[in-house]
Each structure stands twice: as C-alpha cells, then as structure tokens.
C-alpha cells in the first residue's frame, strides 16, 4: 500500500484503515461519549449491550478501540499528547488503569457462514448445536489471538505460555481435558471450526457428522480472566466479547442467542452490534421473548439517536475528524472547516438577488392591489431599495405571510395590518423557508457551510466523509490552480449536488429491488417538495418525513392492521431496504390525542438536497398505506 495520501478523506471508514496506529491517528476519542453515558448508569459491563445503527455510523470503529492492538498503543503512550485524551476516557470506563490494560476486547465478526448452517440437510436441533459449537470455537480462537496480541506474544509458538484453568465442573467440555495449555485449547477449537467449515463448503455429501455439537454458548462463561492465565498470572480484569454484525445471523440463531445470553445472566460482558435493519418485521419483544425488557435485562445504544440528541458534540467530533484527515494530506491543505465559506458572496450573486427582489415585489403588488389590508406592510417593504440577500429573504417572507393571510381571510374582516404584525411573525422557520424558496426559484445556494455539511451527514460519519472528500478535492483543485483554497457557497453546493447525483445513480446498481425502492423515494420526494413549496408554506420550514396512517372505513368484518395485510408486504420490504441502505431514518414522536406515538420515517438528509427540502427535522405528514403502495408500483 502506498504511503502517499493526497486526499485522506477518501479513506472512508476507520475500521478499514490498516494499522492500529493509523486508526488511532484518525479516531476521535469524543465518540466514546456514548459509553461514558452508559457507564454513568452502571450498565455498561453488567448488562448485555446492543449497539445499533445504520451502515457507516461508526459501530465497528467504536468496537475496534477496545481491541488489544489499539488498547496497547494507548496504554503504552498514555502520556503522549496524541493519546492522552483517549487514555483518560478509557480510564473512566475502567478499560485501562495506571497499571495495565484491564479489559481485553475480543471481537467476533458474524458472517454468512453461520446462516449457511440453516441450509444443511439436518434437523433444527442439530443445526442449532452446530451453530453453538462454531460460535464457541470462534470465541475461543478469537480470545486466544487477542491475548497473544495484548501480551505481545508470538503466535503460535507462545500459545503454550497460556494456561486454561477451567475445571470443567459444568461438563461443558466432552472432548477436551482441562486444565490444559493454550496450544491444546487452540487445537480443540480449530478442529471444531475446520470440521464445521468442511461441512458447509463441501461439494460432496457430508455423510455422518462427527462434529462436537454444543447445547449452549458456554465459551462466554469459561473464557474468563480468572480461568485463563499467561505465565501463571492473571493478565486482565475483564474480558469483553464484542459480537459484530449480529444481523447476519438467521432469525432462529439470533433469537436463540439473544435469549440465551439474556436468560443466562452470566458474569460475562457481551456487546452485540448490528444494523437497524435486523429489527424490521421482527419486533424486539418477539425476538427476545416476552420475559425480556430493555433496561432491566439489556441496554441499547442507537448511535444515530444518540448523536441526534447531542448534535453539538457530534459537530465537534466531525470537525476534529476533518482536521485530523486534512493534516494527513501530502498536499499542504491542512485545514478543512475554515476552507468552507459560510456566507453567500452577494457580489457574485447580485444579478440573481436583484431578480428575486423584483419578482417578490411584483408578486406582492399583484396580490395586494385590490386590498388596503397590507398597505402598511407594502410601504415598509418598499422603503428600502438596497439590493441584498437579506432584503430578498425579507420580501419572500412577506410574500409567504401575505399568501397565508389571504388564504385564510375569507371570513375575517379586512382591517389593515400593522407593520409590527409583519415583523412579529418573522421567525426562523419562515426565514429558512424563504431562503429555500429563493434558492429553488433563482438558483441561489442554500446548502453550504460546515453546519449544513454536518446536517447533510445525517449523524453518519461515513456519509460525512463521502461529502467532505469531494469538497476537499475542490480545495486541492483551487490550490493547484493557484486560486484561494477556500470554497465559496456556489462551488460547495455544486460539489454537494454532484455527490448527491452520483449517490442516486449508484443506487440503481446497489439497491435490491431498485426499481420499486427508487420509485418509492422519488414519489415521496416529489410529494414532500410539492407541499413544502406551496406559496403558503403551511408546514414551514418544510416536510421531509412521513408516518403511516391507516384509514379504516367501517366494514361488516373486522379488518386486520395494514402491517398484517399481505397486500402491503411490499411496503415493509421497501422500508426495510431504505433503512438498511440508510435512505430513511426512523424516529419515534408523540403527537395527537392521548399522546399517540408515531414512527416517523425521515429522508436521509442527502435526499433533502435532491428534492430541495430543508435539513431540519420535525416536518412530517401522515400517509396511507394505499398511497405508499401506489408510489412503490408507479
């Protein structure tokens, strides 16, 4: 791999970065805030923890910090400026102490080969026994590797310096005599893994299976810091099992596994990370059984929701990530945020702004011509003749307010409105709407500056890097051509649109059932755009989310709920795909009678740019399943 790093923003996700040192160089310790909060509730280690998010939100990077490689680097360089902050946070989490690394993170990645066990020509019970034996074997193997890494031992030569002291009091182990050394333990687990692997990948019939099947995931209980010693000594205080990509397991496997760890309530620490998609069509209670409850039996971190509640912190983290990446470039553009202009260059846009002002004046004159009601407003708006963006926005706001007033004033008396009644009604949402309208009508940038870039990232670090990579490319191009490095608003929006268009085109190739999903998103986007850009701006600053509302007409027989109706299965499938591919964000909100709870599906913010919608949350509409189905099919 080349060391030359022209545009480090293109190294997309931290977990794909090769060395632990490079990973830490780009890692922002502040993201561990999610764990600090859980630690303060004292359920970080004691309860089973589910870490959920859309792809690219940073789950794997979060887990990688707890692996022995990064932990050793941080501990060994704890006084260095580079790692001090991370060391202090890890200390607060009880992961390191001043004496040693206290927590050994063991990472187990789930892949399709667990699910493939379901395809073997075996009974369900036997399949489950194979699943547990493969998982036990992999946990043992991953733990031994993690110990070797943490203690800087040599593999496989130093396996015999590890001893496994478990006395098999529970008779879990039928083909391994304990106590034994690490070498023997490794052989035993490798044997199981090899045999299962041969069974799932063989062209020839598997014949009589002689693989050791397990009834439970006992590895979590027997691989403990007191059972495993290095040179006869305990080497850490806690072993943390991190089971990544759990959504790749089959439904029976996930269900059995989750129920097992929750019911067992063992003294082990287990984190599961999985994509949100795993929950579609599988309500949590259904998966875990009715005896399990969030909070009591397990804890959950939804990364996007966490950052949505901590937007200020997330913005700071993204700024740090951007700075760290820019600093790595070999092209001498070592800052990022500062190179994104946050204000419009009005001189460059003078002609368009003037046109916007004139058009608003014309429109206001036209609609107020036959009424004295808005006389004071019109006088106020005409008083100033400066051509500025601020004035264009003011006029557009007035245009919206006048349209609203006319729209609802059929029954009201035609008393003249005071000037104050205009200024009092001007607020942030009307201002944002006005800017959005001007942007669409006159091609004046709306999406630019670091704050908008953060919003466009939809709390997803990979998405942020995707946009930033192209913006940084623009900065590099400016530098090479001898211009000022800073990107103006026009250029920024042009680049962002380019990224959005490319993402949209890629969806045709990337998405399963792409025709249906894109039809759904496109119809939804056009609908949102239509109601957002109505002259009255009734839903200011705009609509970019929906909830599903069933309209039941009285019938002789009781109708099933829409999500139980086979006709609407395509809606569940399409929404599932949209969540899995991060096109929709799911949020719960309370509205209406008796605090009714609604699940609102918002557009990922990059889709807002495509359909000229605001980047704020909160604007959503209720849509019937019938309409959604129509939009999928057309």
């Amino acid at each position, binding site marked *: 791999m*080349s060391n030359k790093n022209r545009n480090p923003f293109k190294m997309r996700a931290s977990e794909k970065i090769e060395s632990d040192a490079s990973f830490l160089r780009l890692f922002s310790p502040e993201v561990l805030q999610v764990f600090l909060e859980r630690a303060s509730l004292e359920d970080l280690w004691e309860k089973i923890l589910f870490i959920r998010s859309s792809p690219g939100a940073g789950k794997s990077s979060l887990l990688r910090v707890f692996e022995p490689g990064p932990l050793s680097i941080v501990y060994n360089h704890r006084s260095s400026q580079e790692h001090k902050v991370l060391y202090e946070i890890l200390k607060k989490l009880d992961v390191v102490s001043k004496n040693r690394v206290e927590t050994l993170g063991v990472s187990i990645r789930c892949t399709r080969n667990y699910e493939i066990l379901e395809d073997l020509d075996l009974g369900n019970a036997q399949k489950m026994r194979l699943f547990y034996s493969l998982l036990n074997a992999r946990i043992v*193997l991953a733990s031994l590797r993690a110990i070797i890494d943490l203690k800087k031992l040599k593999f496989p030569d130093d396996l015999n310096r590890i001893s496994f002291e478990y006395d098999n009091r529970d008779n879990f182990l039928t083909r391994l005599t304990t106590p034994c050394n690490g070498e023997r333990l490794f052989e035993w687990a*490798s044997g199981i893994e090899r045999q299962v*692997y041969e069974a*799932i990948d063989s062209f*020839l019939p598997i014949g009589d299976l002689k693989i050791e099947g397990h009834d439970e995931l006992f590895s979590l209980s027997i691989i403990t810091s007191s059972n495993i010693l290095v040179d006869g000594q305990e080497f850490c205080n806690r072993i943390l099992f991190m089971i990544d990509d759990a959504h790749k397991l089959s439904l029976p496997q996930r269900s059995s596994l989750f129920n097992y760890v929750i019911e067992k309530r063992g003294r082990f620490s287990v984190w599961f990370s999985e994509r949100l998609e795993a929950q579609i069509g599988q309500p949590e209670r259904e998966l875990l059984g009715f005896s399990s409850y969030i909070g009591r039996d397990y804890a959950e971190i939804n990364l996007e929701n966490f950052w949505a509640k901590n937007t200020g912190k997330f913005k700071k983290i993204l700024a740090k990530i951007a700075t760290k990446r820019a600093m790595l470039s070999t092209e001498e553009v070592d800052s990022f945020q500062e190179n994104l202009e946050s204000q419009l260059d009005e001189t460059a846009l003078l002609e368009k702004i003037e046109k916007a002002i004139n058009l608003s004046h014309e429109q206001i004159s036209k609609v107020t011509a036959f009424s004295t009601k808005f006389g004071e407003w019109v006088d106020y708006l005409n008083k100033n003749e400066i051509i500025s963006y601020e004035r264009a926005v003011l006029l557009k706001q007035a245009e919206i307010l006048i349209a609203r007033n006319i729209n609802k004033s059929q029954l009201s008396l035609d008393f003249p409105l005071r000037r104050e009644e205009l200024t009092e009604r001007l607020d942030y949402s009307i201002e944002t709407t006005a800017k959005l309208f001007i942007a669409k009508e006159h091609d004046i940038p709306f999406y630019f500056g670091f704050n908008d870039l953060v919003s466009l990232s939809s709390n997803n670090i990979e998405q942020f890097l995707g946009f930033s990579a192209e913006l940084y490319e623009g900065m590099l191009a400016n530098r090479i051509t001898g211009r000022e490095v800073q990107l103006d608003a026009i250029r920024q929006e042009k680049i962002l649109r380019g990224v959005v268009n490319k993402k949209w085109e890629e969806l045709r*190739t990337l998405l399963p059932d792409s025709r249906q999903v894109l039809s759904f998103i496109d119809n939804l986007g056009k609908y949102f755009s239509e109601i957002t850009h109505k002259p009255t701006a009734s839903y200011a600053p705009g609509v970019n989310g929906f909830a599903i509302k069933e309209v039941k007409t009285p019938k002789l027989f009781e109708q099933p709920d829409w999500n139980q109706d086979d006709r609407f299965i395509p809606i569940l499938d399409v929404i*599932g795909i949209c969540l899995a591919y991060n096109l929709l964000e799911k949020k719960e909100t309370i509205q209406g009678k008796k605090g009714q709870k609604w699940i609102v599906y918002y557009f990922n913010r990059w889709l807002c740019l495509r359909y000229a919608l605001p980047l704020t949350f909160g604007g959503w509409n209720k849509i019937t399943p019938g309409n959604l189905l129509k939009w999928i099919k057309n």
Partner: protein
Amino acid sequence: MRWDPYILLKGNEVNDLWKRFNDDDLRRVLFILGKGFDVRMNLGLESLCQEAPNVNLVVSIVDFTEGKNSASLKYGTLVEENHNQFQSLINGKTVKDHSLNTWKGKGRKKRRVGDRNASELFQSITELEGYTDIVVDISSLPRGIYFSLVGKLLTLISQIEGKSTPIPNLMILTAENAAIDSKVLEHGIDEDLHFQFGFGGGIETESLSLPKIWLPILGEKKALHFDKANQFIKPDEICPILPFPSKNPRRADDIFAEHYELFSDVLRIEPQNLMYVPEQNPFEVYRKLMDTIKNYQESLSRLNGCKAVISAFSSKLLSIGALLTAFEAKSISDLHVGILNVDSQGYKIDDLPEVKLLKNQSELFVIWLTGMPYN
C-alpha cells in the same frame, strides 16, 4: 499444474470439434445450458446441432429464478424467444428440465442459495455415467450458478480419476462478446456477500489467521462491485488484474482510468501490483493466478503463508481462469484460495436492438477441462 498444457478452442475450431462428434457413433453428449434472456443462449447449441446433426445428444436446461422483483423480469419476451428457438433446435432430442431457486426466504431475510442448489443438480458420478462428453454452456448462466455447477462436475469426475472408469470430456462452452457484456448492466448488487459455495478456501476460518491477498479480475463498470468486495474481504494486499492483450488495445488503460480514484486515493494500490492477462485465454489467467499465489505463499512463508481471494468482475471467459485456480488449490494442502464474486439481483440491457445486432459477432470458445487430451 493440472491444466498445463491445455486445450482451448475458438471459432472454427469449435465447429471442427462438433464435426468430429458427428462422425463418432459412440459419443453420447450431455449438453447443459441455462434458460435466460441473454441473446447468446442458443448460439452454442445451434452450432452443435448444425455441425453434428446425428450426434447422440441429451440436453439439460436449467431454469433459474432471480426473484419476483428482479430487474431482468422485464425481458420475459426475450426468454420466450430464446426458449422457442431452443425448442426448434432440440426437436427429437432428449431434454431434461431442471428448475433452480436462486433465493431462499422472503423480503429482507431472503438469502442467495443458487450456488448451493446448482451444486445439487448432479448428486453423484453415476448420473454422468454413459456420457462421453459433458458440455456446460455458460453463455446464459449467471456466475453464481456455473461456478458451483462446474466445480461439482470437476469434483465428481476427480473421484474416478486413476480408476478404470472412463473419464468423460468436460468442456465449458461460452459465446464471448465484450460489446454485449458492456451493454448488459447489473442491477441491485448483493448487499450480503459470501464466498462461492464450494470455493470458500477456508478464508473465513478464525484459526487460519494469515495475510489476505486479493486478486480481482477487472472489467468495465465494476467500481461499486470492487468497492463492496473490498469492504467485505478487507485484504492486506490487492493485485488488480487487467485484460491485456485485448481486441481493443486501450481496454486495460480505460478500465484503469475508470477505477483510478478507487485504486489511487481510496485504496492506495502500488502501481507494481497491477497484473495483465490475455483477454481471451482463461488458461493463461489460471497460470498467472497460480504463479502469483504460489509466489506470495513462498514470500510470506515466515508468516505461515497467505490466503488468496479471487474475484471475477470480468467476462465469463476470464472468470473460468479463477474457477480453475480455486479448484486446483483445493487439492494442495498449503494453499487457501477462495472465490468471492459479487452477484446482482437482475440485469438491464442498455440498448436491446443493438445487442440483438451484435449477437452474430459473438465468438464461441470451448475450454476443455477433463478427458481425452489430459488422459
């Protein structure tokens, strides 16, 4: 190496082979092909029936489903046209129909099982007894199916090698046409990748923690496939393979230019890692891959060797080189070679009238794998 020397026939050489079939009364040919929308579906069978009208022929047609929402469903008329032509070609011949499910499950939990099911089309060597020649025409079969199907046939035939049972001639037939390939676009590439059934190569085993070398054979418009596979494999070293020499001498450069950003900025691949293979010779691909993997194995012997992953983002013809390499590696104890292809859930034809016109410019290739020349 198992296929050194090798037999590769093309164009008129293929017709000459069929003529020899026609002159030999003892031959009994099993011809396997897929039922699909590819305009090249019947080219191989047509040439065989033309050149060898008297051959004792049994035709197995594999009808595979791509799912109810597949983008290629809209080419139902093409499938029908192909099938009608097929019916007229096999008039009077024995036909065996096989249906094959590509997917299992529904909605988001559905998973690809086509490769596993393809390997079950022939369960044992006894099903092949009596055939002197087995021809697998992959022109209208997706990669996910023909890799496992050919892998299974090679495995069954390997069981009788060295025994007194006559070894059938196993041949892969394909109608090559790079222009058509570039107009058939893949839609909805798989999110959930997995190693090709039978060609896992132990890559995912935790106990074998060795450096991973990735050898992707590249074609046009495969940046997303490449990126997706890279994220799945997480290789330690990448050696992209480009087609050269090729009919269009600039083809390798064009493919490189198309993937430049990915190679240079995202993955920072060293230029010396690029490799070249002739566009129309799968056996040369196989040789190059075997040599490369053995070289890496030797260079990394201090680290206990390596694992190699091959991905075919190229023409079907070149993909056979990947298949042969992974198959041979299965019998070499120290080599761990897996195949990771990125399948798609459907196809879209860019310019159908043009594709139909291009059909006759296709060239037939026979890749002869077992039997007479190798005995």
